[in-house]
């Protein structure tokens, strides 16, 4: 007979309640991991959306996400003429607040050239933008629906298509409009003085500026080599897709990564302490029984096995409860929660190790029990 199982069954209600508490704690740990993963995924999603190999940005910047970048729109023509480039497109990015259903809706507006790289990676519902002006593809998380109309700047846009998982690192849902609409929107939203200068043509800037030009290369082309070529041009810098993702994950999410990492580590430590205390308490409540077992001839391994098995059962059931909870409610979080099977598996292994180590306190107490204490009242 398994003493650990029999003891658990005898106090099943209390044991399950303890598992539930631990499960909620582990669920929070999983949620933190998922939130971080979601943060990274969101940060990289916009950068990965165009599915390009190269980003041409303003010289000496690491734009267009980590730093501001503004380059003339006609750079796209020059980039497209490079031998290894199969397609190139200009892109603008800006954050805009719009009125929506009586409240403010914060949107990450992406302007792109139709039929060129930079548009929405998928259309989940509706269609792509077909007209030059005032059509929009919005991410589902914006809450916008097909055929809905929303004012950006001075113009009203109609939602013709919906995409998904397109949010920036700050969690703002992305909307795609044509490049010309986006440039016009920048003008509409610019400070009045700047708009006057621009209209007069005396401001030193013109409407046709973009944040970046993106390029797709031939499959066998070297992105690094092409980037090196572009870097030799004046006033421009070129960043490969890989470098861009590295910049994003290091700069934009670095602080969040450390914060969440610290918090997750603290939670794991707290979980370990709680498991240790629970197991220790469960053991202390059984001291008389342990003494009796030792007196009647139970070997130490039987007693150790009982305690360790209970610790592992606690961890396993708690982990299953926590994982099940988070997997089922993660879609209701305001930010994306990404949980890969390997995240869950690694945490499971950590919980296993923690339970094993935490049971050490209880095992130590049990091994020190004097069988003579079973004698006497």
């Amino acid at each position, binding site marked *: 007979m398994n*003493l650990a199982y*029999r*003891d658990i069954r005898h106090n099943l209600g209390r044991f399950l309640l303890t598992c539930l508490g631990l499960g909620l704690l582990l669920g929070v740990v999983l949620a933190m991991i998922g939130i971080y993963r979601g943060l990274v995924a969101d940060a990289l999603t916009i950068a990965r959306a165009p599915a390009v190999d190269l980003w041409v940005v303003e010289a000496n910047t690491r734009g267009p996400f980590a730093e501001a970048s503004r380059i003339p729109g006609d750079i796209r023509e020059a980039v497209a003429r490079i031998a290894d480039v199969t397609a190139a497109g200009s892109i603008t990015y800006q954050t805009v607040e719009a009125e929506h259903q009586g409240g403010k809706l914060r949107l990450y507006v992406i302007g792109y050239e139709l039929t060129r790289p930079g548009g929405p990676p998928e259309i989940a519902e509706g269609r792509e933008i077909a007209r030059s002006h005032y059509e929009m593809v919005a991410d589902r998380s914006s809450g916008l629906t097909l055929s809905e109309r929303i004012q950006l700047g001075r113009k009203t846009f109609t939602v013709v298509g919906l995409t998904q998982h397109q949010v920036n690192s700050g969690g703002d849902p992305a909307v795609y409009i044509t490049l010309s609409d986006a440039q016009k929107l920048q003008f509409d939203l610019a400070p009045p003085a700047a708009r006057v200068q621009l209209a007069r043509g005396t401001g030193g800037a013109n409407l046709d500026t973009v944040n970046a030009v993106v390029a797709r290369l031939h499959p066998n082309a070297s992105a690094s080599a092409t980037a090196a070529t572009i870097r030799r041009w004046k006033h421009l810098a070129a960043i490969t897709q890989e470098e861009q993702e590295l910049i994003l994950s290091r700069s934009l999410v670095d602080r969040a990564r450390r914060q969440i990492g610290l918090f997750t580590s603290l939670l794991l430590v707290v979980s370990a302490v709680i498991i240790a205390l629970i197991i220790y308490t469960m053991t202390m409540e059984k001291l008389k*029984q342990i003494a009796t*077992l030792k007196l*009647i*001839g139970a070997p130490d391994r039987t007693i150790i096995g009982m305690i360790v098995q209970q610790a592992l059962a606690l961890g396993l059931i708690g982990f299953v409860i926590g994982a099940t909870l988070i997997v089922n409610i993660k879609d209701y979080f305001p930010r994306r929660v990404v949980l890969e099977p390997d995240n869950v598996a690694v945490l499971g292994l950590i919980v296993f190790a923690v339970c094993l180590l935490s049971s050490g306190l209880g095992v130590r107490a049990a091994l020190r029990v004097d*069988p003579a204490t*079973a004698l006497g009242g």
Partner: protein
Amino acid sequence: MRLEGISKHFGEGETRVDALREVSLEVFPRQVVALLGPSGSGKTTLLNVIGCILDPSAGSMELDGELVLHDGQWQRGDLRRLRLDKIGFIFQFHNLLPFLDATDNVAVVLQLAGVDIMAARKRAGELLNDLEVGHREHAMPAKLSGGEAQRVAIARALANNPRIILADEPTAALDSKRAGIVMDLLRKLAVEHDAAIIAVTHDEKIFDRFDRIFQLRDGRLDGSDPTDSMI
């Protein structure tokens, strides 16, 4: 079982306490003997030494023909196994494991000795029937009456056919009628199993149930003339 010159002291120097002073006694199979004495006289200490859970300071002990203790040194490495095979324990408050039913409380001892669980449960059932608590074989200890629990505890003590049964105040929690029943039962079992029973007790109601009574005072055994004992 034979004890010769068993001594046990705790502490040294000014703090030294001599719990046992050269205690010698002999118990034969089928005997039921009592250890009496005031509080602090060394009864529990002696019981712990006989039960191989306390190291004496000096002396020898022979158990079932085997020299297990010589000059204060245990002659066997695995005392736990010795207890499992040769010694049974009956406690004042039965000390049944609360998470095992009556059958499994008895079977666990057999399982610890390496008996297959099915065979252990079968043997446990037989013992419980012998002790007239077979009808409560699946009851949890919390549901047993005091007398029933004590019988289950006795069955557990007998499970591995021990040569010595050590009983620490076996009837203290029982009324006089049940106390007498338990002692008669123990005597019957001692005869049937060819075992000896050593009981620590203060219960005057059952003094007449013992073959011999050993009186401990300040760690010494009072001269208890064996020729006066009734076997």
